[in-house]
């Protein structure tokens, strides 16, 4: 795989002196779904806006499909579709007209059949002649996606596509993203929702205070940083943790009925077998055992706290 978007040493300082991006470098592979996670004000939107040409970089270099976004802006921008975070639509236009406008703006000849296909794919087919202002919030968001797709981009940026969207629509949106990925579009999305990154991303980038903290394969990331927990339920409460078990750092629930053992799932020895043996030796009767994997959320919160 080759990088379709490449960001090198990107810095963005606003007129007031605020440094929104500090020396960001990032490669986005063709065909992947990359989720950018970060708290409010982390620089997610600035990064996207700078790649798309809405904001001018203070320093650094960005290429899209090998084209420099500053010197070959036409070739670079033609490859990129952007779905902004806020709903910015002309209220008095019809869906069809505003989506066609986007296609024309990107230099593509008019193609009503193609646009109708996109609208159908986004379940907007029956709304094509409706005025934008008569649509619900969720539909407007889909119109924004239709506009971004109207000029057949190879890279699609979704800036918080599911912010303030109900659960059902969020699932719909994930399906749309999956469909786009299947058709070969590279997708970069920013989100607050960790479950969203977990559900649809191939790789996860964490950004905070204008710096990329890490970019990693989602599965690797979770395996590498993920801690596993073993919960042991006892048939009879243990009044205290026996000395023989002290090296396991067990956590005992207040009622004494549950013991929790935290271990590294990727380590060579997890210590589970010996723990279970020692438990038996200590005369504790086990009723049930469960394991839990820590979520991306735990990893994320941990990372952002470290840099705070």
């Amino acid at each position, binding site marked *: 795989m080759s990088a379709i978007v490449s960001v090198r040493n990107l810095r963005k300082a*606003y*007129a007031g002196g605020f440094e929104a991006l500090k020396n960001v470098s990032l490669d986005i592979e063709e065909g992947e779904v990359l989720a950018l996670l970060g708290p409010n004000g982390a620089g997610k939107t600035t990064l996207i806006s700078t790649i*798309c*040409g*809405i*904001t*001018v970089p203070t320093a650094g270099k960005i290429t899209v499909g090998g084209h420099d976004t500053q010197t070959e*802006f*036409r*070739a*670079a*921008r*033609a490859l*990129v579709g*952007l779905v*902004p975070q*806020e709903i*910015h*639509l*002309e*209220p*008095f236009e019809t869906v069809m*007209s505003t989506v*066609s*406008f*986007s*296609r*024309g*703006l*990107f*230099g*593509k*000849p008019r193609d009503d059949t193609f646009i109708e296909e996109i609208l159908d794919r986004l379940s907007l087919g029956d709304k094509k002649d409706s005025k934008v202002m008569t649509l619900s919030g969720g539909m407007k968001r889909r119109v924004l996606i239709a*506009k971004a797709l109207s000029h057949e981009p190879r890279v699609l940026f979704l800036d918080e596509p599911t912010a303030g969207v109900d659960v059902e629509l969020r699932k719909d949106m994930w399906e749309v993203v999956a469909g786009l990925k299947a058709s070969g579009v590279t997708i970069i999305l920013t989100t607050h929702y960790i479950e969203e990154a977990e559900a649809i991303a191939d790789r996860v980038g964490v950004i905070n205070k204008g710096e990329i903290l890490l970019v990693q394969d989602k599965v690797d990331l979770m395996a590498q940083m993920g801690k596993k927990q073993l919960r042991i339920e006892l048939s009879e409460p243990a009044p205290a943790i026996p000395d023989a078990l002290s090296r396991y750092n067990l956590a005992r629930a207040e009622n004494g009925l549950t013991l929790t053992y935290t271990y590294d799932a990727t380590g060579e020895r997890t210590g589970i077998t010996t723990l279970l043996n020692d438990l038996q030796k200590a005369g504790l009767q086990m009723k049930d055992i469960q394991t839990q994997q820590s979520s991306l959320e735990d990893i994320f919160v941990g990372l952002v706290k470290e840099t705070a």
Partner: protein
Amino acid sequence: MNLNAVLTIYIFEMRRFFRTLTQSFISPVLSTSLYFVVFGAAIGSRIETVEGVSYGAFIVPGLIMLSVMTQATANASFGIYFPKFIGAIYELLSAPVSFLEIVAGYVGAAATKALFIGLIILVTAFFFVDLQIAHPLAMIAFLVLTCVSFALLGFIIGIWAGNFEQLQLIPLLIITPLVFLGGSFYSITMLPPIWQTVTLFNPVVYLISGFRWSFFGTADVSIGVSLFAIALFTGACLASIWWIFRTGWRIRQ
């Protein structure tokens, strides 16, 4: 050159105009008719002729200019201000279009609308006064140049304006007074000498004078000076817009 983009913007803007066709046409026709009634009939009956032209006919070029300048400025400023206001401008900034293409689309559409309105007023005028056009080609050329240059000015205002009040401010505070004081309804030779000199600093004087020359063959200032003034004004607007896009002033951070 992204010609598709220019056409897309142009057609999109013209559609906005045709959607509000009645308002777009009725109001200039109505206000022109009122001007004819008030100035032409009430005052004209006392003045009769200015420089050998009946007063009713004499005010026609000024009236057309008044509407054309206001409409071109208002349409162009609104055209670019509205997407800025609702945020839809993100699309223009992220599209593979150059500043010249954006300007050509928006200014072209605003100038076309103003031109339409100018021609409608001209047609309306024929119902009220006996009118002859000495230099029709020059008349059209002056009209087009005025439409374009004031649409450029409107575009700058639209980019500059931070709210709807500011959008109205320049047309109200500057353009209307300049047009009224620019000899729309009188010949500047009718003013005391001191005011004649002051008037020469008003750029609109040159436009109206040139335009009037294309109708009646007489002018307050020479036609060459008029053309030079309008070229200077257009050039200044273009230079400002070039600077705006180069620095991203008020649109691209």
